[in-house]
């Protein structure tokens, strides 16, 4: 068994009366693609938010490389090697694609309390950023403002930014959301390329993509993990089928926070 990179212990988070995550314990192994699936409102985004540090859990612990990071602020987790992409496209819209990635590189190139020299002339920021854009396939769009990129390109850019922070673990919140078939296919290929070099936690509704990519799948329902297994075993798990085909859709109205 490979070494465990990220681990949660009885993680719990509730909003008012609504329990979003309930005593969730899961392990992510180094090098794997670990998908988290579940109906709407199952607490997937809440989980990502807690792993990345933008939400504090009510109780429980989060361990990264065997270190308790439950109370480590978000920006420091990023320095430790956790990177996150957002469910809703979250690039810096009035920055060019290249600037977006360069800024991500800058985040880990020492502190940014440099007030004088021009950031856009700093080769140590530009070069790695260009490299990543090349890898993602956005080189020809690098000078376009992010807001004028297509939706799929923005999602790619989002991934590029996450990669630019040189993460050990990538937390991807619905990277294929709102994409067409072709764009999704491209994204799947991109993620496939990352396999082996990066560990990925992936939330996705596109089941084809999930089953094509994932090494293991955790199924969340009402904030609880009802199964964690290989794609084949999940497919045949009766409880999972029930959650998805039964009353799962009834709770889609609950707003995720």
């Amino acid at each position, binding site marked *: 068994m490979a070494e465990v990179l990220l681990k949660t212990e009885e993680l719990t988070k509730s909003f*008012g009366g609504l329990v979003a995550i309930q005593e969730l314990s899961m392990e992510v192994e180094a090098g794997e693609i670990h998908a988290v699936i579940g109906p709407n409102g199952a607490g997937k985004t809440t989980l990502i938010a807690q792993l990345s540090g933008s939400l504090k859990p009510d109780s429980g612990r989060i361990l990264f490389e065997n270190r308790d990071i439950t109370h480590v602020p978000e920006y420091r987790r990023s320095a430790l090697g956790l990177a996150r992409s957002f469910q809703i496209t979250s690039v810096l819209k009035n920055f060019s694609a290249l600037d977006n990635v360069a800024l991500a590189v800058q985040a880990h190139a020492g502190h940014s309390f440099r007030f004088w020299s021009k950031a856009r002339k700093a080769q140590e920021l530009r070069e790695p950023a260009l490299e990543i854009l090349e890898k993602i396939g956005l080189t020809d769009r690098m000078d376009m403002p992010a807001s004028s990129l297509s939706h799929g390109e923005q999602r790619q850019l989002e991934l590029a930014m996450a990669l630019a922070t040189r993460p050990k673990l990538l937390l991807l919140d619905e990277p294929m959301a709102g994409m067409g078939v072709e764009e999704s296919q491209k994204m799947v290929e991109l993620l496939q390329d990352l396999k082996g070099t990066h560990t990925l936690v992936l939330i996705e509704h596109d089941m084809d993509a999930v089953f094509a990519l994932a090494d293991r799948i955790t199924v969340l329902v009402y904030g609880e993990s009802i199964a964690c297994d290989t794609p084949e075993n999940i497919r045949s798990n009766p409880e999972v089928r029930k959650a998805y085909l039964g009353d799962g859709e009834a709770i889609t109205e609950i*707003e995720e*926070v």
Partner: protein
Amino acid sequence: MGLLLIEQAFNGLQFGVMLFLIAAGLTLVFGIMDLVNLSHGSLVMVGAYLATTLIEWTGSFILGILLALPSTFLVGVVVEIVVLRTLYERDHLDQVLATFGLILFFNELIRIVWGPASLYSGLPESISGHVEILPGVPYPAFRLLIILVGLLVALLIYFIVARTKLGMLIRAGASNREMAGALGVNIRMLFTLVFGLGASFAGLAGMMLGPLTSVEPGMGEPLLILAFVVIIIGGIGSIRGAFIAAVIVGLVDTLGRVFLPMLLRSLVAESTADTVGPALASMLIYILMAGILVFRPRGLFPARTG
């Protein structure tokens, strides 16, 4: 001292419900439409002027107020349709600038129509007397009436928000704007209606303020700042928060003004107390607000969850 404390508590309460009337509309408009409306104070002024004029015309206090209320509602609706509608989609800064422009416009309009001098609106004999709230403590009847009306309006708003369909929509809108749209509500109508209601409440505050203080151009601005303080402390969009915050602000301001200098005088030299006391009292509610925001960055009762 005990009697004085009780009397001052009444004063604070009266100030508080007055602030609530102004803040109620502001917080609804803010909560539902996400609109920073600096010109809300102008509606207080418009209400006060309309009431003063209508009372004089009709010769009846009650009739004047009854006519002024729908008139203020109308002014609110017109302002909403002509100017504010286009501002909902804009960011807060555009709203601040445009509604600041509205303030200037309203102040000058009032100065042109009614002249620059302060107006005075009297009280009918029946409510200009005193009521003994406690043995030996006479209290102006009109101020008691204000407290009563304020509490009644608070109850009314509570009823509307908690019990009616309109209230349900308001709550839905305050916690999630898209959701109200998803429910198939005519959002535009709802906004206009709520704005008009808020305008009437502000106008009502102005009408009740008229007999107490002078009716003059620009009378709404200091009140507006206080109303903002109230809704920020209470949590934007929360009626309950606005009510509690208004009473807190009313009490803190009143009691602070009266007792803080006294307290300081017993602690430090009189001349120092005379300088520091009133200055500190003026700052008190801002200190309160800053303190609350430092510990609860979204106010006491944040309405929106996201």
